[in-house]
């Protein structure tokens, strides 16, 4: 059974929200998982691992602090790639100006890729992202090389460097595809997503959708 990209995005967005991210960050997490799936990468699996790892952690411990010019670290020790990714997009103008950015210890760095792809397109120049065993150019038209999935799926890296490159075409492709995600991943994400649903009560059932008139007419 395969899932549509819309299902992947909706499930990932709700899971991210259920795990405690703000709505805006959760919306972007949904898009990130969708983008990775369209690239043939196990985005939902990596997202499920990350949400499990950070479940209950405070935003302030996970978010980047730019205390050292151009070097971002988390006060809790490990950056969340969903928060850092969104911040990288927000700082696309720094990449456009040719500034390099360095992240300290970062969990699940694969999740940075969709944000860097967007940041590169906003900056109008490609971005090369590197961590141990990985060096990739984002924002171009090249597919992610096959065989890199394992190195990309790493749960933790000590450092990530992000270097602006050549000017690139700002056109954003609209990727298509389907996802065949493992049962355990679907269960993990659904577990977080369930937290966004209100428990069923008689009052809610009767009033919440405006019942009261018969449909058998």
């Amino acid at each position, binding site marked *: 059974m395969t899932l549509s990209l819309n*299902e992947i995005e909706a499930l990932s967005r709700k899971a991210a929200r259920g795990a405690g991210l703000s709505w805006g960050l959760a919306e972007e997490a949904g898009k990130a998982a969708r983008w990775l799936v369209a690239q043939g990468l196990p985005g939902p699996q990596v997202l499920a691992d990350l949400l499990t790892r950070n479940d209950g952690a405070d935003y302030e411990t996970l978010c980047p602090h730019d205390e050292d010019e151009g070097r971002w670290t988390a006060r809790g020790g490990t950056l969340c790639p969903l928060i850092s990714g969104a911040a990288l997009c927000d700082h696309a103008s720094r990449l456009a100006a040719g500034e390099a950015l360095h992240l300290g210890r970062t969990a699940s760095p694969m999740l940075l890729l969709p944000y860097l792809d967007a940041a590169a397109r906003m900056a109008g120049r490609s971005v090369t992202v590197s961590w141990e065993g990985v060096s990739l150019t984002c924002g171009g038209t090249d597919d992610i090389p096959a065989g890199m999935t394992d190195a990309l799926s790493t749960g933790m890296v000590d450092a990530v460097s992000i270097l602006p490159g050549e000017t690139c075409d700002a056109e954003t492709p609209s990727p298509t595809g389907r996802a065949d995600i493992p049962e355990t991943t679907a269960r993990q994400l659904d577990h977080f997503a369930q937290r966004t*649903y209100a428990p069923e009560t008689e009052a809610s059932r009767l009033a*919440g*959708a*405006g019942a009261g008139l018969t449909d058998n007419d």
Partner: protein
Amino acid sequence: MHTPDTQPIAPRHPDVVMRLDRLGSFHQSRLSFMRILLRRLQSEGWRVERTLFEIDARGVGRAVYTAHGPDRSYSLVAFANDLPPEKRSDRVIATEWDATFTLFDGVPDAADLARLQANVPRQEAGRVSEKELSLSRANRSVRLWDHVVESLAAGHQPDPDRVAEVGYLMRTTAVYGSGKFGAADREQIADRPECQAPFQIEMLSVYLTRAFVMDLVEHMARMRAPDTAVPLDPDLRRRFGIGNSTGLGMAPFLVTHPALLNNWIATREEALARIRSLPRASTDEARTLRRFATRAHLHAQDWHSEHPVQIAKLDALRADMAALLAHLSTADLQADQPWNRLWLWAEQALSLEGQELLASLLLEPYPQLVDPLACCMAADETATWRIDGAMRSDRLRALVQDIYGWALAIDWTSPDAQARVWYTSEAKLEPRLGERFDEPIEPYEQPLCPGRDAARLWADLAHTAHDNVAGFLMRHPQHRHIVRRAQIAARLPYAEIRDNTIDAAMMPIDMLRLKLSFFGACHFDPRSDRWLRINMYQHAPFPHELGARSGDDWAYPFLATAAE
């Protein structure tokens, strides 16, 4: 000395248009998605064939209707059911229906049909695949269904008054599209010309569903009394639309698709502004407007509701139409920007229902001016979705004041201002609306209250030390979604409903009607403040009649020849 004013008229300001009471008074128009679809089916000579119809005397079985276009075919696969009356519910939480459907991309083979038979009747509990483009279901209008089957079986036509009273034999209760329950994502088909305009797949599915339902009722009459049964008279047959029962699910869609909402409204406003700007009108154009106004008057008389709010609106609309017809009988509709003069008169003389009906009517005489604008109604949400972190904080402040000024004027500490909570129930994920101060639902609140959220953003922006959006959002991640909305609405003026969507007095049906009017629905009949019934394709030609009858001129009832 009087100088004819021929200055172009600007589109109406979003502060005027995007209020819920006005949006909840919108009507179908030339730009409605059903009319866009039928114009295409007609101009491209689409052909519809019924390739399978296996339904037994209890009404159980399946059918396939395939629509062949110039490049591709699409098939409605229908499963009919013998539903016990106690199970008949239009709610999302229902589990069985009188009939279920999917729109298949192409022509299904036997294996496809077997797979669909195992899944489509289960709706949300089943799975479809990338070969399917929609998933939907429908329930009978019991009162009219039985009367029509009995009449036809007895060899005579049903009572036209009873047909008019209900207007349809079945109503759909959900039509799921893009990617839902495993179906194909919209992106998979978005580059096909016939899928360019919004909701064309869903509109095609519903159009074919109407054809199936009419065939089914005649079939049931024949099965009951093969010797005496007669088919419906073709003119009476066209008076049956296909109903729809719509709940809260549509309201979140409008908020979560700001670019799409903008493009629908902006296109309609652009069309209206262009027509108001015309320096003069021809005799034919004036006559067309008068004729459509007469037909719209008839339509208002055929429109029934038991809901007190809608009854009052219908009374006002009928009075509006009488006033409009009286005005049109003497007004000069040809010189000195006639449509703008008419519009300015209407703003003073008519209720919101009447004004917005006139906005739709003014588009009727101008197919060449209006119909090509249909291509502007689709939207790519991703194009405006990313946050511009380099924006200065004071620029964001100015945007919030400009776009959400109405929200900053609300006292959000008042319980009425925040009385409602939009949430999703764990029961089949039904979208619901609850009372913030009476139910334990606030932790599950969905971000569907941009006004309140903009006011919260404003409070934190007032004393931020960060001089750009990137720095501000790093410290205030809870405002991220509303900053995105503000930046989208800065580029797309009609992207945001400029009204309080969680107010104690808010009527969700206003949001539903806005969306349904763009579909082309009519006869809005609220059943409460949060769900309503509508009619679709009433008076439209059936597939086999396209070509012989206009695919576009059917949205208002026809006049008796003498009155034309």
